[in-house]
């Protein structure tokens, strides 16, 4: 998320950008929604209602939190920019109550959308096809699955929703509505619904199943490259509000966004090279003044390749993304530049007692300390390399998974870092 959005922001401002990535990542893993702040570390028992308001409070309570470093206004600007981009890509996102009026500045509330196990996830912006799942809506829910489809169990979802006080029931349709082939994953099934005949057939079956007044929840496989048309066809044929429930990875809503964004980057002349793992860098080390990055080395099948640029943005993520590595003693390090981390270097200090501890765990809360311009700093607050920025999952003082803020952090910090680089280039 953070790297691609930063690449887009910088390229749109006229910079020449190259994306070097180990593989394709986080957009394929998550739900395709934009979680800005789902839970605060003070109050884990119920979700945050107004995330942008809560972010304003972070400035005093958690001054090192990336949102606090940027300020609520910058976070909002970044979300606006993302919203505009998503609309431009033909995959509009919207906030609570915004099904009929895209553009997130609706109520400012988090939505609560059903997950693939029927729990409710707080999220701020969602693709249009997920909005009708919002818990604030009153229609009873019909969750439809497909016999033989792995990892999507409508009965489990309906049962868990019912336990939380919703009127919900489950139904199954045969898998051969979606495919003639025997062994398909969610992405292949979504591709199947890019075919108009197939989705008209499915729409007819949904119409037959739904009782008047119900809304229908389906696995998030409603088209891949032709999703908007697929969704609107299905909606029209079924004659009921529809919503997608994000599946286990690979997540089709995230992949749609990735494919559209990568296409946009190609059009802007940005190269997106996957399969190129950053393994090191050539630097002039800091010596009183800030140092400089001269190149980033990526692994090839032979000699490492030196990738040279004027400015560098590190968006390799934390432990999950591969931006950090560790050994059995508890030593943990940033893999490209060897930047200092705020994570304890002894294993027994990594975790607090209790897995669900509301204060989180130091190993997940820690990371790269940055200044307000998203430049990595040392323990005295001095910028380490004058031409290095960082964004996304690598940043310190936040556990995006616990706080449900992964995409919000990525969008806000990626956007801010890119803007700072654009300003630095203009000087």
């Amino acid at each position, binding site marked *: 998320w953070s790297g691609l959005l930063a690449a887009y922001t910088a390229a749109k401002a006229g910079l020449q950008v190259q994306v070097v990535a180990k*593989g*394709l990542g986080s957009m394929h893993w998550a739900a395709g929604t934009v979680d800005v702040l789902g839970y605060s570390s003070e109050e884990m028992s119920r979700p945050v209602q107004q995330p942008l308001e809560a972010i304003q409070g972070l400035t005093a309570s958690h001054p090192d939190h990336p949102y606090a470093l940027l300020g609520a206004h910058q976070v909002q600007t970044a979300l606006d920019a993302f919203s505009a981009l998503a609309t431009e890509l033909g995959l509009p996102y919207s906030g609570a109550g915004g099904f009929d009026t895209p553009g997130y500045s609706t109520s400012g509330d988090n939505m609560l959308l059903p997950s693939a196990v029927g729990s409710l996830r707080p999220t701020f912006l969602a693709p249009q096809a997920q909005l009708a799942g919002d818990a604030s809506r009153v229609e009873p829910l019909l969750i439809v699955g497909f016999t033989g489809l792995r990892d999507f169990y409508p009965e489990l979802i309906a049962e868990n929703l019912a336990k939380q006080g919703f009127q919900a029931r489950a139904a199954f349709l045969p898998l051969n509505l979606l495919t003639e082939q*025997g062994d398909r994953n969610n992405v292949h099934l979504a*591709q199947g619904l890019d075919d108009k005949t197939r989705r008209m057939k499915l729409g007819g079956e949904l119409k037959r199943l739904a009782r008047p007044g119900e809304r229908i929840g389906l696995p998030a496989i409603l088209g891949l490259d032709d999703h908007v048309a697929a969704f609107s066809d299905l909606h029209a044929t079924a004659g009921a509000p529809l919503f997608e429930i994000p599946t286990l990875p690979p997540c089709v809503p995230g*992949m749609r966004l990735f494919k559209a964004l990568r296409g946009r980057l190609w059009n802007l002349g940005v*190269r997106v*090279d996957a399969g*190129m793992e950053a393994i090191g860098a050539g630097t002039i080390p800091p010596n009183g003044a800030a140092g400089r990055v001269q190149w980033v080395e*990526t692994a090839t099948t032979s000699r490492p390749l030196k990738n040279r640029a004027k400015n560098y943005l590190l968006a390799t993520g934390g432990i999950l993304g591969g931006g950090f590595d560790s050994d059995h003693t508890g030593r943990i390090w940033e893999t490209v530049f060897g930047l200092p981390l705020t994570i304890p270097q002894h294993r027994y200090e990594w975790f607090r007692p209790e897995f669900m501890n509301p204060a989180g765990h130091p190993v997940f809360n820690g990371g790269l300390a940055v200044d307000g311009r998203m430049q990595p700093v040392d323990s005295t607050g001095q910028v380490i390399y004058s031409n290095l920025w960082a964004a996304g999952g690598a940043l310190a003082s936040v556990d995006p998974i616990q706080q449900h803020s992964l995409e919000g952090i990525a969008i806000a910090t990626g956007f801010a870092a890119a803007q700072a680089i654009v300003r630095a280039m203009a000087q």
Partner: protein
Amino acid sequence: MPMHTTSWESVGPSLDECIKCNICTSYCPVAEVTDKFHGPKYSGPQAQRFRENGQPQSPDHSVDYCSGCRVCNEVCPTGVRIAELNARARAQAAAEHGIPLRNRLLGRSDLLGKMGMIAPGLANFAMSNGLARSIASGVMGISKGAQMPQWSTEGTFASWLKRTGAQRLKSDKKIVYFHGCSTMYYEPYVGKAAMAVFEHNGFEVLVPEQGCCGLPLLNNAEFPAAEKYHHRNLEWLVPYARQGYQIVGTSTSCTLTLKEEAPDMLDIHSPEAHELAMAVWDMFEWLRELHDQGQMKTDFQPINMVLPYHPPCQYRAHHIGSPVMDILPLIPGLDVRESHARCCGGAGTYVYKKEKYQIAMDVGQELFTFFADQGPQVTMTACTSETCRWHIESATHLPCRHPIEVLAAAYGLYDLEKRRLVKE
């Protein structure tokens, strides 16, 4: 037949990095079009847990349908060597069940090359003759539709080198050229174009004794024979690597094999194998380095043409970015359009196998559509790999050139239409 044992040292442990995210299956071009291949995750890291050296039965047969395109490796966010796991599984199955004569033949591009060169006109006639192809299909299982390479009717690359030895440039700047079997027997003009580019940039070209890199054997699961081939090349080429020569190749799959495929797949991790791997360059990787140092000549003549270019999957597997796209756009007038298609479908010898031909055509559709979308002004395409070029030509009915031919033409040294040097 003795089992080829491997330690799994470099490839095996990577399966523990798999987080089951299925990104590989989502991008696998083969699993997308057929049920016969269950996809990289199932055949690779998943099935791997049930495979062991010497185990009486391999757990699945679908791995034979993996085309080896390595898109899975490219998109994997955690670095699992999926394509290599599959190749090793194929080798294990081959050791257990034997290798069909067809695959043994397809694996030996050097032998096929030599055989055809006895009477290339006759061999080409047989390969384009419907009756002969029907027999080959029925008896051997070689697909009737796939375009066979044409043996060179003007002699091998080696014979041309010998003939023109006196005209070759002498210089203090020297490099070693690795031409590969296809330049040797089928497309000597690719080698001539490369020689012209090297010499135009002031390099004397050494072409020492060299053999097939062994990739076709690796693809057809004949690991013991591939091992012999690699050791032979080590013997011939390491002395040059030790003297500091850069060894540059125009066949992207050969250079990939010398760099990584052979050492990793066959567990040849000797210092010699490492020395060779470190000295080998792909032609355009080398040219990009030359250009970065400000030493590549750019005295180009314009080529006014739209040229769709496909970086083959074997090329992307070098992990060197897109060097062709760093160099070709320097040519004035040339509108190079890079394809982002995953694979042409041909995948080396895959398309020649009867049971895989249709899969290869279906996989290639993404690329063929891209070419068609570039409009009717397109008269020619480009691709860095020979087998892909043949497959692309048969599917698009347009000539497909190696980018080095385009570069040589831009230097005014090569006729892109007739595929021959201007001064010959």
